């Protein structure tokens, strides 16, 4: 064969260019003239400009690319089993996957559903293929994550909690925040939810902590499966970020949209921070056994991904289009991360509530203390005694930490907006909306409920905006219940009908595992219901007392 002649050169023939292909595909749409297209989900935005598709992809190349990605993922899962991954995996880590993987498939499939909402709203068809790909991508993510969870269930030492996963998702007090996240993608104003909340903020900013930071920590704990699946998932996100930005650009040129965009960027950023940082921050910092002081803490990762990558290079440039960026909120979120112990307080709350979880949380130990103090100076003074109490009270027969008056922990109010409890006590606020009292973790969450999710925004009618609904305070559902009965009702009991699914330790021995009988006799209560019963004066005093916070009692 002559030099330079290759098989590719022999078989090559002229084909349609990528630009021509995308132009032809975009020309498949038309404006109906016989019948108007169906009503779709409403928006208060005006979309006059057709969004452009910067990615220029067609389904012909998309499907083989995705199949190839899948082949790598499933091959890696097989290899992990052949390599006996579970023999060396850290159970502390895998236990938190029971929570994380219970939550994430529903937000993923909600993102698929939301493509219906933006697909028809956006004029022109250029971005249609991008939305269609995202729809199928999200179907991929949801089911590939269900598959990963099943794989853990089949191969990890303690499958309890994985086995009830979607039932647990609907019932657990911790998964509530994941439901707020997912419903936020598909309910209310279609642009607010499917464009700003989902693609512009959740996918562009927070998938980096979800799908990049967390897999790194998984690998440090001997779990090679999660990085394999989630980095493959993340490789789809760049296309979604492109879709979101493109639609945003078609909105931002119309000054009429600026007021709503400012509202939605503020709401979406704050709520994403409140939800994602609570959950992922806790899992990354407290679900790990790796205490390498050279690795980045969650706060450092946040600074890299959210502050530098998102805020400085994505959000700030939006100001040139004339919209005001909520700089103060970004600073406030950062302060919550590094000065106000947001992640640590969340981990404390999750662990206090262990009896009504469906996964195990073991105590942090001296080795962990050392790392936390190094990364978060002052941590030990604030949380050291708490985790020692937690360890001490992890043996069946002890009074569970949730009800143990010796510890000094004060059960928190729930934030009506982000659904995370009001853990930073000094920021606690309450307000009246439509004649009813509500509690919030922060001023911005109060604003979100009262001002943003309303029929009018700064004098402008917003008929498409959603409303908060349902029994949003989880504690209301079991107000006055014996905790053992509540656990049975939740379904968080193992197959013997007695042993709890959650345990405050990682001991896989029946003799050392908590049973319903160890908890019976204590009652759950709703902080909000009690708060609402107070007179205005008593309520004011209660707020002042709450803002003072509490002090964990020293432990001998």
């Amino acid at each position, binding site marked *: 064969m002559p030099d330079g002649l290759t098989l590719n050169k022999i078989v090559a023939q002229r084909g349609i260019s990528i630009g021509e292909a995308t132009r032809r595909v975009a020309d498949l749409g038309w404006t109906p003239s016989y019948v108007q297209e169906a009503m779709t989900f409403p928006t208060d935005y005006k979309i006059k400009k057709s969004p452009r598709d910067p990615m220029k992809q067609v389904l012909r190349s998309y499907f083989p690319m995705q199949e190839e990605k899948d082949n790598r993922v499933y091959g890696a899962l097989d290899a992990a089993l052949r390599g006996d991954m579970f023999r060396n995996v850290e159970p502390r880590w895998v236990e938190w996957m029971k929570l994380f993987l219970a939550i994430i498939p529903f937000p993923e499939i909600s993102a698929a559903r939301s493509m219906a909402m933006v697909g028809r709203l956006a004029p022109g068809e250029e971005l249609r293929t991008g939305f269609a790909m995202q729809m*199928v991508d999200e179907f991929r993510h949801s089911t590939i994550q269900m598959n990963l969870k099943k794989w853990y269930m089949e191969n990890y030492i303690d499958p309890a909690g994985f086995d009830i*996963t979607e039932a647990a998702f609907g019932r657990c007090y911790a998964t509530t925040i994941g439901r707020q996240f997912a419903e936020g993608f598909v309910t209310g104003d279609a642009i607010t939810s499917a464009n700003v909340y989902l693609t512009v903020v959740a996918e562009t900013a927070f998938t980096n902590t979800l799908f990049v930071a967390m897999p790194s920590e998984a690998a440090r704990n001997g779990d090679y499966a999660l990085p394999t699946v989630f980095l493959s998932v993340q490789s789809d996100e760049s296309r979604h970020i492109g879709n979101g930005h493109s639609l945003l650009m078609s909105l931002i040129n119309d000054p009429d949209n600026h007021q709503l965009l400012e509202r939605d960027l503020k709401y979406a950023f704050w709520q994403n921070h409140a939800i994602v940082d609570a959950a992922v921050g806790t899992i990354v910092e407290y679900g790990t056994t790796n205490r390498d002081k050279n690795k980045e803490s969650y706060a450092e990762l946040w600074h890299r991904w959210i502050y530098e990558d998102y805020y400085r290079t994505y959000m700030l440039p939006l100001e040139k289009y004339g919209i005001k960026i909520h700089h103060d909120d970004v600073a406030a979120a950062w302060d919550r991360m590094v000065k106000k112990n947001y992640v640590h307080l969340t981990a404390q709350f999750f662990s206090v509530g262990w009896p009504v979880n469906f996964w195990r949380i073991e105590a942090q130990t001296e080795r962990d203390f050392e790392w936390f103090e190094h990364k978060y100076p002052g941590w030990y003074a604030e949380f050291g005694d708490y985790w020692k109490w937690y360890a001490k009270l992890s043996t069946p027969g002890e009074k569970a930490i949730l009800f143990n008056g010796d510890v000094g922990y004060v059960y928190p109010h729930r934030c009506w907006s982000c659904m995370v409890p009001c853990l930073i006590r000094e920021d606690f606020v309450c307000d009246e909306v439509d004649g009813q009292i509500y509690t919030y973790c922060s001023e911005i969450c109060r604003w979100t409920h009262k001002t943003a999710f309303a029929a009018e925004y700064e004098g402008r009618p917003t008929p*498409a905006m959603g409303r908060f609904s349902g029994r949003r305070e989880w504690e209301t559902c079991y107000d006055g219940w014996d905790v053992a009965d509540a656990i049975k009702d939740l379904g968080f009991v193992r197959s013997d009908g007695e042993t709890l699914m959650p345990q405050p330790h990682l001991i896989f021995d029946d003799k050392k595992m908590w049973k319903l009988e160890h908890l019976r006799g204590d009652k759950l209560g709703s902080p909000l219901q009690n708060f609402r019963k107070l007179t205005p004066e008593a309520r004011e005093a209660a707020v002042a007392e709450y803002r003072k916070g509490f002090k964990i009692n020293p432990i001998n």
Partner: protein
Amino acid sequence: MSATQEPVKSGAAGAAVFAGSDSRKYNYYDPKGRKATHYEDMTVDVQPDPKRYLLQDWIISFADGTPTYYEGWTQLKSSDWHKFRAVDQEWERTHYQRQSTIVGMLKNVIDNGRRSGAPARFDKAWVKVLQDHVGAYKHAEFGLGTSTMQAQRYGYTQMINNAILTNSSYKLRFAQDLTLYLGEIALDIDGFDLDAGKTHWLEDPIWQGTRKSIETIMGANDYLEQYFATNVIFEPLVGELFRSGFVMQMAAAQNDFISPAVVSAAEGDYERNLANTVELFSMLVQDQQHGEKNRQILVNWAQTHGALALEAAKQLQPIWSQPRVKVAQFADALEQAKNRLRAITAEIGFDARAVIGG
């Protein structure tokens, strides 16, 4: 000593025996068969429901109080929406495998056909048919793809929505398959006008019935009406009529072996979409509480969309006269389409005579 000081030696299944250590199946739903399928494990209950495990109910609503998912988004009613399982059992891996296989098959057929110089040997009259009418028909496929993309937001369970989602994915892919196929053979055929198809779609009287039928489906506000009208009515009466009854039968006689292969992919897609559709609507017709009312609604939808689709089919008749070598008759194709509709509706549980007569 606290309980946390005990070492853990292995995180592998079977390393210890304790309560729940053998609970290695998703146990929160009843499988349709004796054992849960992988598809069921990937799909069931991912979209929650206050009637099942959603303790706190939906926590965001639309301004009028409509919750995130709402049974009233269709006129049809079910005693248990969660009973439905997609017959094709698709989850992400099987979907990509199938779509990728199709795309690969099409690429091979088109590339090798073009390499052999086949498009230049297509009969001239047939080239015009491809340009004008296959070029027009691709828009019908796109309309169904966008319509089902819209519909997949509204279903009350994950199983229903995912079946509609994969339907949309297949339709959008096929609309693009035709677009790119025509774009590629246009490189080999002098004077092939790639804009002609859309002009015929928008202006040619032959296609206006089809466009009206498609726009009516796109305009339906009931997502199950869209799904029903797509797969039960339009596909057999117009889609298959044109794809199988015309392109696949005529092409070979015009020296074209590529087009039937391209179009055959859509026929395979439709068999799967149809199976899912029949399963869902027969479940709703057999519903002990709501079956009769549901059947009436389906009959009404069948009448509305059937009349439009039949009219559309009849308007396509002149196309059968356009190829130089005539190996298929419109009347035969239409009769086959009607028989197909009769079989589908009988399977679901209502009579097609209301739509197409005896």
